[in-house]
């Protein structure tokens, strides 16, 4: 029988109340959102907080909206709500691709976007998706609000920059024209953590009658990629034509720069292969979707075919 160790429990009634509670109980307090990562960790004594601050009642932290040119996602938004949000999916298909393969439909009803990011599991799907999107994290404490780039948010396995007395409240992604995105994951079975996964975002533009890559975002998870991204592959792609060859070579660059480890999900060599292959596939699908969104012919034939 797995039961968490003794813990105190406080239910926050507002964001300010949550911040006060977190400040009062200090570093041994943990935020309890959906609980679908934290409670299993507590059962295994991998997490042993003294106090839980339950934020499930904070409905004003659950929303998905476009404001001032940014898609804004409240930290308490459930996975199922993000998956069901046409607004999020229309702007960034990578979010729907990723959500569709996170855990199972019942877990997705309760697990939260902010909770997954703060859990900072090295195999977290959303960490790669938001890294690819170059999202901004909004963190509040009693003195005010600060923002952190998602690529500076995770400081190591199960570690983030969110300090004691702080709460992740929102994730922001700039909305830009000509953008396409996708997520590709290989898992051992439905609902499992990835063996490897890649998210890709492409911002395309036309230059000299050719479709070139204005900017690219590539997120990787479970393969030991620093800060959940493939910065070298992104750099490689900038200014290049949006072709299958560019994507294959970017995949090679991404694979070279990640540091997977052999574990029960697979050998390091296989994970490295996945990092490259899934990067190339995600880029190709992202390019097709960008072409579809802007009415251009896709890089691999009629845009509609790969647009999914």
């Amino acid at each position, binding site marked *: *029988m*797995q*039961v*968490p*160790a*003794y*813990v*105190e*429990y406080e*239910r926050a009634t507002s964001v300010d109340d949550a911040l006060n509670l977190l400040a009062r109980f200090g570093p041994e307090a943990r935020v*309890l959102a959906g*609980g*679908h990562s934290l*409670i*299993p960790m*507590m*059962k295994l004594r991998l997490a042993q907080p003294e106090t*839980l601050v*339950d934020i*499930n009642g904070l409905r004003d932290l659950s929303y998905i909206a476009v404001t001032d040119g940014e898609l804004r996602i409240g930290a308490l938004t459930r996975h199922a709500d993000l998956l069901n949000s046409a607004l999020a999916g229309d702007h960034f298909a990578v979010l729907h691709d990723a959500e569709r393969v996170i*855990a*199972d*439909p*019942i*877990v997705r*009803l*309760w697990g939260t976007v902010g909770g997954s990011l703060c859990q900072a599991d090295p195999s977290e799907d959303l960490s790669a998706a938001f890294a690819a999107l170059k999202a901004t994290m909004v963190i509040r404490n009693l003195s005010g609000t600060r923002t952190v780039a998602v690529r500076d948010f995770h400081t190591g396995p199960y570690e983030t920059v969110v300090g004691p007395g702080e709460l992740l409240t929102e994730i922001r992604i700039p909305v830009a024209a000509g953008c396409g995105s996708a997520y590709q994951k290989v898992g051992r079975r*439905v*609902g499992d953590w990835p063996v490897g996964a890649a998210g890709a975002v492409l911002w395309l533009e036309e230059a000299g009658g050719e479709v070139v890559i204005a900017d690219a975002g590539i997120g990787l998870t479970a393969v030991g990629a620093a800060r959940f991204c493939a910065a070298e592959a992104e750099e490689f792609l900038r200014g290049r034509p949006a072709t299958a060859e560019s994507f294959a070579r970017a995949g090679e660059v991404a694979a070279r720069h990640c540091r997977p480890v052999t574990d029960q999900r697979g050998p390091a060599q296989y994970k490295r292969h996945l990092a490259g292959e899934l990067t190339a596939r995600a880029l190709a699908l992202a390019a097709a979707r960008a072409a579809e969104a802007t009415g251009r012919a896709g890089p691999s034939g009629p845009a509609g075919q790969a647009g999914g």
Partner: protein
Amino acid sequence: MQVTITVNDAEYTREVEPRLLLIHFIRDEIGLTGSHWGCDTSNCGACVVWLDEQPVKSCTVLAVMADGHRVRTVEGLAAGDAQLDPVQHGFARCHGLQCGFCTPGMMLTARWLLDRNPDPSPQEIREAISGQICRCTGYENIVRSVRWAAGYEAAARALPDERDSAGRDEPGAPR
């Protein structure tokens, strides 16, 4: 701390430790043992109950999180002693269970699915129960059971005046 949870329309107030899991509150504190306690890792789905209007794996929720909320378990699925839910009829008709360990969770998820999607395809049913494990049926008969319930309810809706009691025999629902 003291919690009050409404389970199947009855209020239960108990003094519990904050670390008590909802599944143990349901089984050990109030004695409703229909909900099963399986893998303890939110993988198997044997412990699925409804928290307010949505299914949840109750091994991964603290009882204190449900304080002031409503829970529905398999014991609350039937409308009355003689009036099983169509999902329960479906599982009985189509042999949707063998050992029965996964059945309470399967039926609560099926009820939730049918409330939102009255005519789910086999694929949609498999997707809905993909977080729940059955080691007996190979899922085929569970899918048939849910399809049977969907057909039963569609037929019942088509006969609004004659059919008001779900306890009667099914009106020729398809298999």
